[in-house]
Protein backbone atom coordinates (compact mmCIF):
# COMPACT_ATOMS: atom_id res chain seq x y z
CA UNK A 1 0.00 0.00 0.00
CA UNK A 2 1.37 3.41 -0.95
CA UNK A 3 1.51 6.36 1.41
CA UNK A 4 -1.08 8.09 -0.72
CA UNK A 5 -3.48 5.16 -0.26
CA UNK A 6 -2.88 5.18 3.49
CA UNK A 7 -3.52 8.91 3.54
CA UNK A 8 -6.80 8.46 1.66
CA UNK A 9 -7.91 5.73 4.09
CA UNK A 10 -7.20 7.96 7.07
CA UNK A 11 -8.97 10.95 5.55
CA UNK A 12 -11.94 8.80 4.63
CA UNK A 13 -12.30 7.59 8.23
CA UNK A 14 -11.94 11.08 9.68
CA UNK A 15 -14.67 12.34 7.36
CA UNK A 16 -16.90 9.40 8.18
CA UNK A 17 -16.63 10.04 11.93
CA UNK A 18 -16.85 13.82 11.57
CA UNK A 19 -18.84 14.48 8.39
CA UNK A 20 -18.95 18.23 8.92
CA UNK A 21 -15.18 18.61 8.46
CA UNK A 22 -13.96 19.93 5.13
CA UNK A 23 -11.26 17.75 3.62
CA UNK A 24 -9.15 20.85 3.03
CA UNK A 25 -9.14 21.55 6.77
CA UNK A 26 -7.17 18.39 7.51
CA UNK A 27 -3.66 19.80 7.50
CA UNK A 28 -0.77 17.31 7.57
CA UNK A 29 1.13 18.85 10.48
CA UNK A 30 -1.74 19.91 12.73
CA UNK A 31 -2.79 17.96 15.79
CA UNK A 32 -5.81 16.06 14.54
CA UNK A 33 -7.78 16.10 17.77
CA UNK A 34 -7.26 19.76 18.57
CA UNK A 35 -7.48 21.29 15.09
CA UNK A 36 -10.55 19.30 14.06
CA UNK A 37 -12.27 19.19 17.46
CA UNK A 38 -12.17 15.42 17.53
CA UNK A 39 -12.60 14.16 21.07
CA UNK A 40 -11.02 11.07 22.58
CA UNK A 41 -14.11 9.03 21.77
CA UNK A 42 -14.03 9.96 18.07
CA UNK A 43 -10.28 9.44 17.98
CA UNK A 44 -10.67 5.90 19.31
CA UNK A 45 -13.37 5.27 16.67
CA UNK A 46 -11.01 6.43 13.92
CA UNK A 47 -8.21 4.16 15.17
CA UNK A 48 -10.63 1.24 15.47
CA UNK A 49 -11.83 1.72 11.90
CA UNK A 50 -8.26 2.01 10.63
CA UNK A 51 -7.34 -1.15 12.52
CA UNK A 52 -10.05 -2.99 10.62
CA UNK A 53 -8.88 -1.64 7.28
CA UNK A 54 -5.14 -1.71 7.65
CA UNK A 55 -4.77 -4.44 10.29
CA UNK A 56 -2.49 -2.25 12.37
CA UNK A 57 -3.41 -1.82 16.00
CA UNK A 58 -2.18 1.33 17.71
CA UNK A 59 -1.51 0.69 21.40
CA UNK A 60 -2.40 3.50 23.78
CA UNK A 61 1.28 4.07 24.49
CA UNK A 62 1.73 5.08 20.82
CA UNK A 63 -1.05 7.66 20.69
CA UNK A 64 1.54 10.44 20.69
CA UNK A 65 2.97 8.97 17.45
CA UNK A 66 -0.34 9.31 15.62
CA UNK A 67 -1.25 12.85 16.60
CA UNK A 68 -1.05 14.42 13.12
CA UNK A 69 -1.99 13.18 9.68
CA UNK A 70 1.68 13.12 8.67
CA UNK A 71 2.68 11.08 11.74
CA UNK A 72 -0.24 8.72 11.20
CA UNK A 73 0.78 8.00 7.62
CA UNK A 74 4.37 7.30 8.72
CA UNK A 75 3.22 5.12 11.61
CA UNK A 76 0.96 2.96 9.47
CA UNK A 77 3.33 2.72 6.51
CA UNK A 78 6.07 1.40 8.83
CA UNK A 79 3.82 -1.35 10.10
CA UNK A 80 1.80 -2.57 7.14
Amino acid at each position, binding site marked *: MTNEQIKQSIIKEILRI*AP*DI*DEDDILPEENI*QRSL*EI*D*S*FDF*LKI*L*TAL*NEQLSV*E*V*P*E*ADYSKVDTLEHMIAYFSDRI
Partner: protein
Amino acid sequence: MSEFKMPSLGADMESAVLMQWLVKEGDPVTKGQVIAEVETSKGVIEIEIFEDGIVDKLLIQTETECSVGTPLALIRHDDEVKEEVPQKEAKTEKLSEVKEEPLAPLPSIQSDKIEPKVKMSEERIKISPAARKKAHELNLDLNSLEPKEGEVIQLKDLGKEVKRDTKTLTPDDGMRQAIAKAMSRSNAEIPHYYLSLSINMTPALTWLTQLNATRSIKERILPAALLIRAVVLTLKEVPELNGFWQKNAHQISKSINPGIAIALRKGGLVTPAILDAQEMNLDTTMQSLDDLITRTRANKLRGSEITQQSITITNLGDLGVQSVYGVIYPPQIAIVGLGRIIDSPWAEGDTLSVRKVMQATLAGDHRATDGRTGALFLDKLNQLLQNPEALL
Protein backbone atom coordinates in the same frame (compact mmCIF):
# COMPACT_ATOMS: atom_id res chain seq x y z
CA MET B 1 -58.06 0.25 23.92
CA SER B 2 -55.75 3.03 24.87
CA GLU B 3 -54.14 5.96 23.16
CA PHE B 4 -50.48 6.36 22.43
CA LYS B 5 -49.88 10.07 22.80
CA MET B 6 -47.13 12.44 21.83
CA PRO B 7 -44.92 12.28 24.91
CA SER B 8 -43.36 15.28 26.58
CA LEU B 9 -39.62 14.97 25.97
CA GLY B 10 -38.61 17.66 28.40
CA ALA B 11 -40.33 20.49 30.22
CA ASP B 12 -39.49 22.86 27.40
CA MET B 13 -41.12 20.83 24.64
CA GLU B 14 -44.48 21.97 23.30
CA SER B 15 -44.73 20.00 20.10
CA ALA B 16 -42.78 17.75 17.79
CA VAL B 17 -43.05 16.55 14.22
CA LEU B 18 -43.93 12.91 13.72
CA MET B 19 -41.26 11.82 11.26
CA GLN B 20 -41.76 8.11 10.84
CA TRP B 21 -43.85 5.23 12.06
CA LEU B 22 -41.76 2.13 12.80
CA VAL B 23 -44.86 -0.08 13.17
CA LYS B 24 -47.98 -0.53 11.07
CA GLU B 25 -51.58 -1.25 11.96
CA GLY B 26 -51.99 -4.79 13.25
CA ASP B 27 -48.42 -5.07 14.56
CA PRO B 28 -47.97 -6.37 18.10
CA VAL B 29 -45.98 -4.03 20.34
CA THR B 30 -44.28 -4.64 23.66
CA LYS B 31 -43.44 -2.36 26.55
CA GLY B 32 -40.29 -0.38 25.81
CA GLN B 33 -40.44 -0.90 22.05
CA VAL B 34 -39.53 2.06 19.84
CA ILE B 35 -42.53 2.64 17.61
CA ALA B 36 -42.00 6.06 16.04
CA GLU B 37 -39.48 8.80 15.40
CA VAL B 38 -40.26 12.41 16.16
CA GLU B 39 -38.24 15.52 15.54
CA THR B 40 -37.83 17.97 18.40
CA SER B 41 -35.50 20.83 19.14
CA LYS B 42 -33.15 18.17 20.49
CA GLY B 43 -33.04 16.38 17.17
CA VAL B 44 -34.76 13.23 16.03
CA ILE B 45 -35.87 11.10 18.99
CA GLU B 46 -37.13 7.54 18.92
CA ILE B 47 -40.22 7.28 21.10
CA GLU B 48 -41.18 4.16 22.97
CA ILE B 49 -44.48 2.69 24.02
CA PHE B 50 -44.95 1.75 27.66
CA GLU B 51 -47.53 -1.03 27.40
CA ASP B 52 -48.07 -4.27 25.53
CA GLY B 53 -50.74 -4.50 22.86
CA ILE B 54 -51.53 -4.38 19.19
CA VAL B 55 -51.47 -1.29 17.00
CA ASP B 56 -55.12 -0.82 16.13
CA LYS B 57 -54.91 2.42 14.23
CA LEU B 58 -52.30 4.99 13.36
CA LEU B 59 -54.05 8.31 13.77
CA ILE B 60 -51.45 10.72 12.52
CA GLN B 61 -49.62 10.81 9.23
CA THR B 62 -45.90 11.30 9.13
CA GLU B 63 -44.47 14.81 8.78
CA THR B 64 -47.23 16.23 10.94
CA GLU B 65 -46.51 18.57 13.82
CA CYS B 66 -48.37 17.52 16.97
CA SER B 67 -48.56 19.16 20.36
CA VAL B 68 -47.69 17.17 23.46
CA GLY B 69 -50.58 14.89 24.41
CA THR B 70 -51.98 14.53 20.90
CA PRO B 71 -53.19 10.93 20.39
CA LEU B 72 -50.93 9.38 17.75
CA ALA B 73 -52.20 5.81 17.68
CA LEU B 74 -54.76 3.52 19.24
CA ILE B 75 -53.42 0.46 21.00
CA ARG B 76 -55.61 -2.58 21.44
CA HIS B 77 -54.90 -4.91 24.31
CA ASP B 78 -54.60 -8.65 23.91
CA ASP B 79 -57.83 -9.39 25.72
CA GLU B 80 -59.83 -7.13 23.47
CA VAL B 81 -61.20 -8.73 20.34
CA LYS B 82 -61.03 -6.50 17.33
CA GLU B 83 -64.49 -7.45 16.03
CA GLU B 84 -66.16 -6.03 19.10
CA VAL B 85 -64.47 -2.73 18.81
CA PRO B 86 -65.76 -0.75 15.85
CA GLN B 87 -68.69 1.42 16.86
CA LYS B 88 -68.80 4.19 14.40
CA GLU B 89 -71.33 6.23 16.27
CA ALA B 90 -68.72 7.09 18.85
CA LYS B 91 -68.66 10.77 19.54
CA THR B 92 -65.74 13.07 19.96
CA GLU B 93 -66.74 13.67 23.59
CA LYS B 94 -65.42 10.21 24.25
CA LEU B 95 -62.00 11.64 23.73
CA SER B 96 -62.03 13.35 27.09
CA GLU B 97 -62.88 10.08 28.76
CA VAL B 98 -59.89 8.49 27.13
CA LYS B 99 -57.68 11.08 28.68
CA GLU B 100 -59.02 10.38 32.12
CA GLU B 101 -58.83 6.61 31.89
CA PRO B 102 -56.34 5.67 29.30
CA LEU B 103 -56.58 1.97 30.07
CA ALA B 104 -60.36 1.66 30.00
CA PRO B 105 -61.71 -0.33 27.06
CA LEU B 106 -63.38 2.13 24.76
CA PRO B 107 -65.22 2.11 21.46
CA SER B 108 -62.87 2.95 18.68
CA ILE B 109 -63.08 6.42 17.32
CA GLN B 110 -63.16 7.15 13.65
CA SER B 111 -60.00 8.96 12.90
CA ASP B 112 -61.81 11.64 10.94
CA LYS B 113 -63.73 12.62 14.04
CA ILE B 114 -60.64 13.30 16.02
CA GLU B 115 -59.41 16.81 15.74
CA PRO B 116 -56.00 16.88 17.29
CA LYS B 117 -54.17 20.16 17.37
CA VAL B 118 -52.00 19.45 14.41
CA LYS B 119 -50.84 21.25 11.37
CA MET B 120 -49.93 19.39 8.26
CA SER B 121 -46.66 20.12 6.58
CA GLU B 122 -47.55 22.19 3.57
CA GLU B 123 -45.88 19.87 1.10
CA ARG B 124 -45.28 16.14 0.96
CA ILE B 125 -41.90 16.23 -0.63
CA LYS B 126 -39.83 13.08 -0.23
CA ILE B 127 -36.80 14.01 1.79
CA SER B 128 -34.61 12.17 4.28
CA PRO B 129 -35.06 13.16 7.94
CA ALA B 130 -31.52 14.54 8.16
CA ALA B 131 -31.99 16.60 5.02
CA ARG B 132 -35.35 17.86 6.23
CA LYS B 133 -33.80 18.96 9.48
CA LYS B 134 -30.98 20.74 7.71
CA ALA B 135 -33.35 22.39 5.25
CA HIS B 136 -35.46 23.55 8.18
CA GLU B 137 -32.42 24.98 9.96
CA LEU B 138 -31.42 26.78 6.80
CA ASN B 139 -34.94 28.01 6.21
CA LEU B 140 -34.85 26.47 2.75
CA ASP B 141 -37.99 26.18 0.72
CA LEU B 142 -38.18 22.50 -0.08
CA ASN B 143 -39.85 23.26 -3.39
CA SER B 144 -36.80 25.14 -4.51
CA LEU B 145 -34.71 21.98 -4.24
CA GLU B 146 -36.37 20.53 -7.33
CA PRO B 147 -36.11 16.84 -6.55
CA LYS B 148 -35.97 14.52 -9.54
CA GLU B 149 -39.13 12.61 -10.20
CA GLY B 150 -39.56 9.87 -7.61
CA GLU B 151 -36.30 10.57 -5.79
CA VAL B 152 -35.79 11.26 -2.13
CA ILE B 153 -33.84 14.40 -1.30
CA GLN B 154 -30.76 13.51 0.74
CA LEU B 155 -28.52 15.68 2.85
CA LYS B 156 -25.90 15.79 0.10
CA ASP B 157 -28.45 17.26 -2.32
CA LEU B 158 -28.63 20.35 -0.16
CA GLY B 159 -25.02 20.79 -1.31
CA LYS B 160 -24.11 24.43 -1.52
CA GLU B 161 -26.71 25.55 0.95
CA VAL B 162 -25.22 23.27 3.62
CA LYS B 163 -21.68 24.46 2.94
CA ARG B 164 -22.72 28.07 3.11
CA ASP B 165 -24.29 27.50 6.48
CA THR B 166 -21.36 25.88 8.22
CA LYS B 167 -19.75 29.08 9.40
CA THR B 168 -22.83 31.03 10.38
CA LEU B 169 -24.47 30.96 13.76
CA THR B 170 -28.20 30.64 13.61
CA PRO B 171 -29.67 32.86 16.33
CA ASP B 172 -33.06 31.18 16.42
CA ASP B 173 -31.72 27.67 16.67
CA GLY B 174 -34.29 25.59 18.54
CA MET B 175 -31.77 23.69 20.63
CA ARG B 176 -30.06 26.88 21.78
CA GLN B 177 -33.42 28.24 22.85
CA ALA B 178 -34.32 25.05 24.69
CA ILE B 179 -31.01 25.09 26.58
CA ALA B 180 -31.44 28.78 27.39
CA LYS B 181 -34.93 28.20 28.75
CA ALA B 182 -33.97 25.27 30.94
CA MET B 183 -30.83 26.92 32.30
CA SER B 184 -32.63 30.21 33.05
CA ARG B 185 -35.24 28.25 34.96
CA SER B 186 -32.53 26.39 36.80
CA ASN B 187 -30.69 29.52 37.86
CA ALA B 188 -33.93 31.22 38.90
CA GLU B 189 -35.35 28.31 40.88
CA ILE B 190 -32.50 26.24 42.22
CA PRO B 191 -30.31 27.51 45.07
CA HIS B 192 -27.05 25.94 43.92
CA TYR B 193 -24.10 25.14 46.14
CA TYR B 194 -20.71 24.32 44.68
CA LEU B 195 -17.92 22.10 45.97
CA SER B 196 -14.61 21.14 44.42
CA LEU B 197 -11.90 18.59 45.12
CA SER B 198 -8.51 17.85 43.49
CA ILE B 199 -8.25 14.14 42.81
CA ASN B 200 -4.99 12.31 42.15
CA MET B 201 -5.81 10.34 39.00
CA THR B 202 -2.42 8.64 38.61
CA PRO B 203 -3.48 5.36 40.29
CA ALA B 204 -6.66 5.06 38.21
CA LEU B 205 -5.01 6.03 34.91
CA THR B 206 -2.01 3.73 35.49
CA TRP B 207 -4.38 0.90 36.24
CA LEU B 208 -6.47 1.69 33.15
CA THR B 209 -3.38 1.85 30.90
CA GLN B 210 -2.34 -1.60 32.12
CA LEU B 211 -5.82 -2.95 31.58
CA ASN B 212 -6.04 -1.52 28.06
CA ALA B 213 -2.60 -2.85 27.15
CA THR B 214 -4.00 -6.38 27.48
CA ARG B 215 -7.01 -5.63 25.29
CA SER B 216 -7.73 -5.25 21.60
CA ILE B 217 -8.53 -1.77 20.38
CA LYS B 218 -12.25 -2.56 20.29
CA GLU B 219 -12.34 -3.47 23.97
CA ARG B 220 -10.42 -0.47 25.28
CA ILE B 221 -11.94 1.58 28.03
CA LEU B 222 -11.83 5.36 27.79
CA PRO B 223 -11.11 7.36 30.96
CA ALA B 224 -14.58 8.91 30.50
CA ALA B 225 -16.21 5.50 31.02
CA LEU B 226 -14.05 4.83 34.07
CA LEU B 227 -15.15 8.13 35.57
CA ILE B 228 -18.83 7.48 34.87
CA ARG B 229 -18.47 4.09 36.51
CA ALA B 230 -16.81 5.73 39.52
CA VAL B 231 -19.60 8.30 39.85
CA VAL B 232 -22.28 5.60 39.63
CA LEU B 233 -20.60 3.48 42.30
CA THR B 234 -20.23 6.53 44.52
CA LEU B 235 -23.93 7.34 44.08
CA LYS B 236 -24.77 3.89 45.41
CA GLU B 237 -23.15 5.01 48.65
CA VAL B 238 -24.49 8.57 48.57
CA PRO B 239 -27.91 8.09 46.95
CA GLU B 240 -29.26 11.46 48.12
CA LEU B 241 -27.77 13.22 45.09
CA ASN B 242 -29.35 10.83 42.61
CA GLY B 243 -32.93 11.96 42.18
CA PHE B 244 -35.30 14.84 41.76
CA TRP B 245 -36.88 17.85 43.38
CA GLN B 246 -40.54 17.59 42.51
CA LYS B 247 -43.66 19.01 44.11
CA ASN B 248 -41.54 20.65 46.80
CA ALA B 249 -40.08 17.35 47.89
CA HIS B 250 -36.78 15.52 47.57
CA GLN B 251 -37.16 12.20 45.78
CA ILE B 252 -34.33 9.69 45.59
CA SER B 253 -34.26 7.65 42.38
CA LYS B 254 -33.72 3.90 42.62
CA SER B 255 -32.33 3.77 39.10
CA ILE B 256 -29.08 5.55 38.52
CA ASN B 257 -29.52 7.16 35.10
CA PRO B 258 -26.58 9.52 34.65
CA GLY B 259 -27.18 12.07 31.89
CA ILE B 260 -23.93 12.40 29.98
CA ALA B 261 -23.24 15.80 28.49
CA ILE B 262 -22.41 15.16 24.84
CA ALA B 263 -21.45 18.03 22.59
CA LEU B 264 -22.78 17.87 19.08
CA ARG B 265 -20.28 18.60 16.37
CA LYS B 266 -22.48 21.28 14.85
CA GLY B 267 -22.94 23.03 18.17
CA GLY B 268 -25.35 22.46 20.99
CA LEU B 269 -25.38 19.90 23.72
CA VAL B 270 -27.55 17.02 24.78
CA THR B 271 -27.41 15.05 27.99
CA PRO B 272 -28.94 11.64 27.25
CA ALA B 273 -28.91 9.09 30.04
CA ILE B 274 -27.20 5.77 30.43
CA LEU B 275 -30.24 4.01 31.87
CA ASP B 276 -29.89 1.75 34.91
CA ALA B 277 -26.16 2.24 35.13
CA GLN B 278 -26.27 0.77 38.64
CA GLU B 279 -26.58 -2.67 37.05
CA MET B 280 -23.52 -2.31 34.83
CA ASN B 281 -19.85 -3.10 35.20
CA LEU B 282 -16.93 -1.22 33.63
CA ASP B 283 -17.19 -3.01 30.29
CA THR B 284 -20.92 -2.56 29.91
CA THR B 285 -20.60 1.08 30.99
CA MET B 286 -18.08 1.62 28.18
CA GLN B 287 -20.33 -0.19 25.69
CA SER B 288 -23.32 1.88 26.75
CA LEU B 289 -21.33 5.11 26.49
CA ASP B 290 -20.09 4.11 23.03
CA ASP B 291 -23.63 3.28 21.94
CA LEU B 292 -25.03 6.47 23.45
CA ILE B 293 -22.51 8.81 21.84
CA THR B 294 -22.85 7.07 18.48
CA ARG B 295 -26.63 7.32 18.56
CA THR B 296 -26.56 10.89 19.85
CA ARG B 297 -24.42 11.96 16.91
CA ALA B 298 -26.57 9.95 14.50
CA ASN B 299 -29.75 11.52 15.90
CA LYS B 300 -31.11 8.22 17.16
CA LEU B 301 -31.90 8.83 20.81
CA ARG B 302 -34.90 7.35 22.56
CA GLY B 303 -37.48 9.31 24.52
CA SER B 304 -36.66 7.61 27.81
CA GLU B 305 -33.00 8.54 27.46
CA ILE B 306 -33.67 12.25 27.26
CA THR B 307 -36.30 12.38 30.01
CA GLN B 308 -35.14 10.04 32.77
CA GLN B 309 -31.78 11.45 33.80
CA SER B 310 -31.40 11.31 37.58
CA ILE B 311 -28.12 13.25 37.70
CA THR B 312 -25.84 14.85 35.08
CA ILE B 313 -22.15 14.25 34.49
CA THR B 314 -20.27 16.78 32.43
CA ASN B 315 -16.73 16.09 31.40
CA LEU B 316 -15.07 18.96 29.61
CA GLY B 317 -11.66 17.42 30.04
CA ASP B 318 -11.04 17.07 26.34
CA LEU B 319 -11.33 20.81 25.88
CA GLY B 320 -8.75 21.65 28.47
CA VAL B 321 -10.73 23.41 31.16
CA GLN B 322 -9.78 22.50 34.69
CA SER B 323 -13.00 23.07 36.61
CA VAL B 324 -16.61 22.82 35.53
CA TYR B 325 -19.21 24.61 37.63
CA GLY B 326 -22.36 23.12 36.22
CA VAL B 327 -25.94 24.34 36.14
CA ILE B 328 -28.38 21.75 37.47
CA TYR B 329 -31.00 20.60 34.97
CA PRO B 330 -34.34 20.53 36.78
CA PRO B 331 -35.92 18.40 38.17
CA GLN B 332 -32.49 16.87 38.85
CA ILE B 333 -30.71 17.95 42.01
CA ALA B 334 -27.03 17.62 41.19
CA ILE B 335 -24.47 17.86 38.42
CA VAL B 336 -20.97 16.42 38.58
CA GLY B 337 -18.28 18.33 36.70
CA LEU B 338 -15.03 16.64 35.72
CA GLY B 339 -12.23 18.80 34.42
CA ARG B 340 -9.11 18.16 32.43
CA ILE B 341 -6.53 15.83 33.88
CA ILE B 342 -3.26 17.73 34.11
CA ASP B 343 0.24 17.09 35.45
CA SER B 344 0.48 18.92 38.75
CA PRO B 345 2.74 19.10 41.76
CA TRP B 346 1.28 16.83 44.41
CA ALA B 347 2.33 16.69 48.05
CA GLU B 348 1.93 13.45 49.94
CA GLY B 349 3.43 13.31 53.41
CA ASP B 350 6.91 14.79 53.04
CA THR B 351 7.17 14.06 49.35
CA LEU B 352 6.42 16.41 46.53
CA SER B 353 5.91 14.73 43.18
CA VAL B 354 4.12 15.22 39.89
CA ARG B 355 0.78 13.49 39.51
CA LYS B 356 -2.13 13.43 37.07
CA VAL B 357 -4.68 15.63 38.79
CA MET B 358 -8.33 16.24 38.04
CA GLN B 359 -10.70 18.76 39.56
CA ALA B 360 -14.01 17.16 40.42
CA THR B 361 -16.82 19.59 41.18
CA LEU B 362 -20.31 19.07 42.41
CA ALA B 363 -23.21 21.47 42.11
CA GLY B 364 -26.06 20.51 44.40
CA ASP B 365 -29.59 21.76 44.93
CA HIS B 366 -29.68 23.21 48.43
CA ARG B 367 -33.39 22.48 48.79
CA ALA B 368 -32.67 18.75 48.52
CA THR B 369 -29.25 18.30 50.08
CA ASP B 370 -26.62 20.35 51.82
CA GLY B 371 -22.91 20.73 51.43
CA ARG B 372 -22.18 17.88 53.78
CA THR B 373 -23.81 15.38 51.42
CA GLY B 374 -21.91 16.86 48.51
CA ALA B 375 -18.64 16.71 50.42
CA LEU B 376 -19.28 13.09 51.31
CA PHE B 377 -19.88 12.34 47.62
CA LEU B 378 -16.60 13.93 46.49
CA ASP B 379 -14.69 12.20 49.29
CA LYS B 380 -16.06 8.77 48.36
CA LEU B 381 -15.41 9.41 44.69
CA ASN B 382 -11.82 10.26 45.52
CA GLN B 383 -11.35 7.14 47.65
CA LEU B 384 -12.76 4.94 44.91
CA LEU B 385 -10.41 6.38 42.31
CA GLN B 386 -7.46 5.61 44.57
CA ASN B 387 -8.47 1.92 44.48
CA PRO B 388 -9.45 1.50 40.85
CA GLU B 389 -9.63 -2.33 40.92
CA ALA B 390 -13.03 -1.87 42.54
CA LEU B 391 -14.25 -0.18 39.35
CA LEU B 392 -14.22 -3.34 37.25
